[in-house]
């Protein structure tokens, strides 16, 4: 299986990947708790960014309400734990199922009725907002007062119920992100991956060839939703409190798509690069502000906005394509759809 997965990946890329993996594995030994928290956040955004990327980059559907799946996953697993004592490893199946169901509904409604482009995006926002207000009034799940998971002093790590130190969460998140990476890579090289590429490049030609567009898009949406919901499960057990206002909020949806867009939509490494870049940027800006002594609330976000603007204007395909070329990786694995012909 390993040769199959590494087939087509430039050797230099593999070496860099292994180096990165080793660095990430060893990170907690060198980093303090605060850095680990930051890294967990980076990996989280890399993970959900990757999940979102499936829907956008691979199947071409702009979802601006992806926080919906995070929230559904989080609430499903949390509710099972709080009310029935069901651990996260069982709860996550329910989380994935419910998110996939909702994703399928949205997908069905959208694709059957021909809702695309901006309209689809607005539809996803509407669903997320609907969930936000709905959960705000759902007493059994805490409503707007929030759902709290029981916690205690973490003397030891209990991976079965995901209670433990940040280091434990770090490794869980790292595993999830790595698995997502490998999974997406495998997806892209599978038949459905090529269907997606075809649909992205030319839907009419794809249809003419007999590809069931509806089915392919639905698969993308369902996989994306289910994957995202796992991120939500981790979110719930890491933060131990859930508020509809926070978790379903549109700013969350926007937050999680920043990584893939900045990193490079449709590429495999894009979301990861984007997540690292954005978090580093945010933290660096905070540090600079503190160092210079400016304590003006909002100034960090203004700089952040300008940086975002710069990237959007001058690196329209994201940071990864030029970065990848600079690193000498040539055409990146997932960086297809440029119509350049053979490898």
């Amino acid at each position, binding site marked *: 299986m390993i040769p199959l997965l590494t087939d087509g990946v430039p050797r230099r890329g593999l070496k860099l990947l292994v180096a990165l993996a080793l660095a990430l594995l060893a990170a907690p030994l060198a980093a303090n708790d605060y850095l680990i928290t930051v890294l967990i956040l980076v990996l989280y955004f890399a993970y959900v960014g990757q999940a979102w990327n499936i829907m*956008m980059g691979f199947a071409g559907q*702009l979802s*601006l309400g992806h926080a919906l799946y995070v929230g559904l996953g989080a609430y499903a697993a949390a509710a099972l734990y709080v009310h029935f004592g069901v651990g996260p490893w069982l709860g996550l199946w329910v989380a994935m199922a419910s998110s996939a169901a909702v994703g399928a509904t949205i997908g069905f*409604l959208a694709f059957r*009725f*021909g*809702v695309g*482009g*901006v*309209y689809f*995006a*607005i*539809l996803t*926002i*509407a*669903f997320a*907002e*609907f969930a936000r*207000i*709905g959960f*705000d*009034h759902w007493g059994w799940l805490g409503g707007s007062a929030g759902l709290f998971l029981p916690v205690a002093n973490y003397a030891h790590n209990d991976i079965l119920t995901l209670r433990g130190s940040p280091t434990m969460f770090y490794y869980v998140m790292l595993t999830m992100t790595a698995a997502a990476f490998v999974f997406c890579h495998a997806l892209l090289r599978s038949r459905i991956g090529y269907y997606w590429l075809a649909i992205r490049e030319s839907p009419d030609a794809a249809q003419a060839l007999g590809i069931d567009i509806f089915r392919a898009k639905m698969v993308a949406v369902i996989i994306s939703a289910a994957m995202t919901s796992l991120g939500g499960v981790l979110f719930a057990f890491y933060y131990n409190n859930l508020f509809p206002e926070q978790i379903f909020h*549109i*700013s969350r949806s*926007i937050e999680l*798509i*920043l990584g893939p*867009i*900045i990193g490079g*939509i449709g590429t495999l490494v894009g979301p990861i690069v984007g997540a690292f870049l954005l978090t580093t940027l945010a933290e660096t800006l905070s540090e600079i502000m503190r160092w210079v002594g400016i304590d*003006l*609330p*909002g*100034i960090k*976000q*203004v700089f*952040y*906005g*300008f940086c*975002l*603007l710069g990237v*959007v*204007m001058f690196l*329209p395909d994201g940071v990864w394509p030029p970065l990848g070329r600079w690193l000498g990786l040539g055409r990146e694995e997932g960086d297809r759809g440029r119509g350049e012909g053979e490898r």
Partner: protein
Amino acid sequence: MPAEIYLNVAVSGLLTGLVYGLMALGLSVIFGVVRVVNFAHGEMMTIAMYLAVALFSAYKLDPLAMLVPIAAVLFALGYVLQRGLINPFINRPEHSQFMLLVAVALIMVNALLIAFGPDARGVQTSYAFASFALGPLIVDANKAYAGLAAVTVAAGLVAFFRYTLIGKAIRACADNYAGALVVGLDVKRLYALTFAIGSACVGACGSMMVLLVDVTPPLGPTYTLLAFVIVITGGLGSMAGALLGGVLIGMTEALGGLLFTPSAKSMFTFAILVVVLLFRPQGLLGKRLT
């Protein structure tokens, strides 16, 4: 509940809806012609609102009296934004446009936060607490004035697009881009002009809105979303549709809040959106999409 409550609430919803409609009109113009997804629409209205607040607190100038100057400032802002920043993005994919305007919105919101602070600001006009009593009906004076202003501006806009040369040129660009180029229209300039008009529209809306609602820096996104919902419901490309959509949403929210839980009244807006998108995607008064 006594019948007059329904009447009062419905009228209140109607008047507010007219202002929403005007805001959606601005977006409809921008989206319909320039085909740019202006996710910074609400933020521009916020800027206009702050302008009104600043003028009022410094010189005691009534926001409605300042409608034209504020609209003019937003006109200029919109023109510069389109010409300088947004133009290259017209043919880029939606997510690029979206990111651009999200970045712009982020900068606007936080610049406002730095300039004005986080507290809610409003204008205390002499009629801020006034209301008209017409029999069983009690109408909020602010809503009445704002609604009236909204209808006036909207009428002016419709007249502009129907009777002036530039208005017709802009409509031509929207209807047939290639044709417009062939005929020799300076499309780039017209796009900038359209964005500017849409911005002026939202600027005028801001000076009305400030009578109804206090302004805080993060006010924008809610209204951006609302504007989109109204545009889609009313129908892209139809100005009457935008106003109708606004009124519909305004009244639904008000009556929905009255009949059910007020804190859930936004759910009706989204329900309407979903229904419209699925069953009548061109909107109530829009042209059928090809």
